[in-house]
């Protein structure tokens, strides 16, 4: 089989094909980590680039992510510790008072597609829940989303809570969402800001010294 087809079918969001080819590749003895690092991650990077260039829109990003997730569901249980290390661990959630999740989900999918391990806390997440998740997961990054101008202050409250819990120095905080700006990130002491899903990946990689 032509392994590169896994890449191509992921980019085009053909989940059944990606699943079929992944199973076939495994049967032919290809290492799970290799499928992820050589085909799935580059495919999602390409999807992110096309999204940023307005060649792909949200639906194309979603179906590519679903295709990737279908393959990951097969591959992840097969990974050994030495096989493929995650790029880092990210705790992500929409902050307290805010129920919007599509932006957060897109960022989460793209981070997953870039090889990060994701702890998704969902929406309307209170600061103490972020704190607990960072403690438990030993995350490298906390990613906060807010879609409302009225819930943006919860980002600051969350950063303050991480500080109070003595965790602030241990994690990088990256924020995003429709009303959020770099200026706001600077104001509340976040480490990074990203205007869309693809730059969230780039920013996170930069913050961890991976790019």
């Amino acid at each position: 089989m032509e392994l590169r087809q896994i890449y191509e079918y992921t980019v085009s969001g053909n989940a059944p094909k990606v699943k079929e080819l992944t199973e076939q590749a495994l049967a032919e003895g290809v290492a799970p980590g290799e499928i992820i690092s050589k085909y799935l991650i580059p495919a999602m990077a390409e999807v992110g680039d096309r999204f940023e260039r307005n060649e792909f829109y949200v639906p194309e990003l979603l179906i590519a992510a679903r295709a990737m997730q279908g393959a990951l569901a097969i591959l992840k249980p097969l990974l050994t510790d030495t096989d493929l290390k995650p790029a880092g661990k990210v705790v992500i959630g929409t902050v307290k008072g805010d129920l919007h999740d599509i932006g957060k989900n897109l960022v989460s999918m793209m981070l997953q597609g870039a090889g990060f391990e994701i702890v998704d806390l969902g929406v309307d997440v209170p600061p103490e829940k972020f704190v607990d998740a960072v403690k438990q997961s030993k995350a490298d990054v906390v990613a906060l989303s807010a879609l409302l101008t009225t819930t943006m202050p919860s980002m600051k409250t969350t950063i303050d809570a991480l500080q109070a819990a003595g965790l602030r120095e241990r994690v990088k905080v990256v924020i995003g969402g429709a009303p959020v700006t770099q200026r706001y990130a600077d104001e509340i002491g976040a480490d990074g800001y990203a205007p869309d899903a693809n730059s969230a990946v780039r920013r996170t990689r930069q913050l961890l010294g991976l790019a």
Partner: protein
Amino acid sequence: MASMTSRERVLTTLNHQEPDKVPIDMGGVVTTSISRIGNERLKAYMGVTASNEIVSQPALDVVVPCEEILTHFEVDFRAVRMRPPSDTGEGRQSWFVPKDGKGVKGDHFFDEFGNRWQLAEFDYSPAGPALANATLSDLDTCIWPDPHDPARVAGLREETLALRASTEYAITADIMCGGPFEQALWTRGYEQFLIDLHWDRRFADKLLGKITDLDIALWDAQLKAIGDIVDVVCQGEDMGTQHGLYISPELYREVIKPHHQRLFSFIKANTRAKLFVHSCGSVYAIIPDYIEMGVDALNPVQTGARDMDLVRLKREFGRDITFWGGAFETQYFLPKATPEEIREHVRRNIEILAPGGGFVFAGTHNITPETAPEKAYAVYAAAKEFRNYPDGWRRSS
């Protein structure tokens, strides 16, 4: 120039001619107003004592300000809205105007489609789509709002006639139901519907078709009742995000546009009123499609979104579509600006949008709860100050 009535002013600008003054909207549509909390603060600031304003859209927690405020700001519009049905069934909340007109009590409600809306900080977000797990055949059997319930239009003609007889305001009307695309997102769930567009096109198209049928049936009832005595009919339909359309322009034209064509054609064929379409976000790419389908006015012209620069929009599309919005930016600018910055922001935007007509003064969305009342006041004070044609917006010094 001889002074015009509000109706003359509005129709003149919608016909792309210059009226005596830029028409001012506040509350004529559920996306051109102020939040309930913002309104309470504005009243306190202005010393206005009115109470019990109607919540015109509970999910947005938005009100129509009282007459005293509308008169003070020289607002040119008054609205009539489709009423709730007599029975919404099974604990569902009518779409959207609740029976007591006072918003929603409690932390959630179910709309007429059975979608759950959950209270966030101030307003409600879709958080439980009724058709999340539906199959193609489920679309034939699901419980759906009844557009033919006579309660929806009961007394509407009398209300509108009375408004016309006693005032000269331009009258806006809407059906209180989302357009095919946004309603599909709410009813199926955002991610699932966007995935359906690629993976289950038959389902997506059937759902869009059903919603379009419903919208048309609601407009049929509404226009039979008042189509001959209103000036502007308003349809909501969010197609944009902050960064661009939800979907590619190509996919829009292939899948969504045929439904829009059918809906807009029906409306245009059944009333002489002007057609107003709302879409938040960056919709630059499909403005030519809207113009082609006969949309007269675009709201809210979200200038903070990508490709929504006012100068370019006015230059490229200003002769063909009326911009009903864009006059002040409610998301990034207004909550943080000083009254003096607001005055210049409003002046500048009027200067861009007013020439040649085709402009109704309104913001990029409702004024938010956290916007201080003196800022909301400064917006409309500046509108009054700079609204006069031929060039009342010119910098004086």
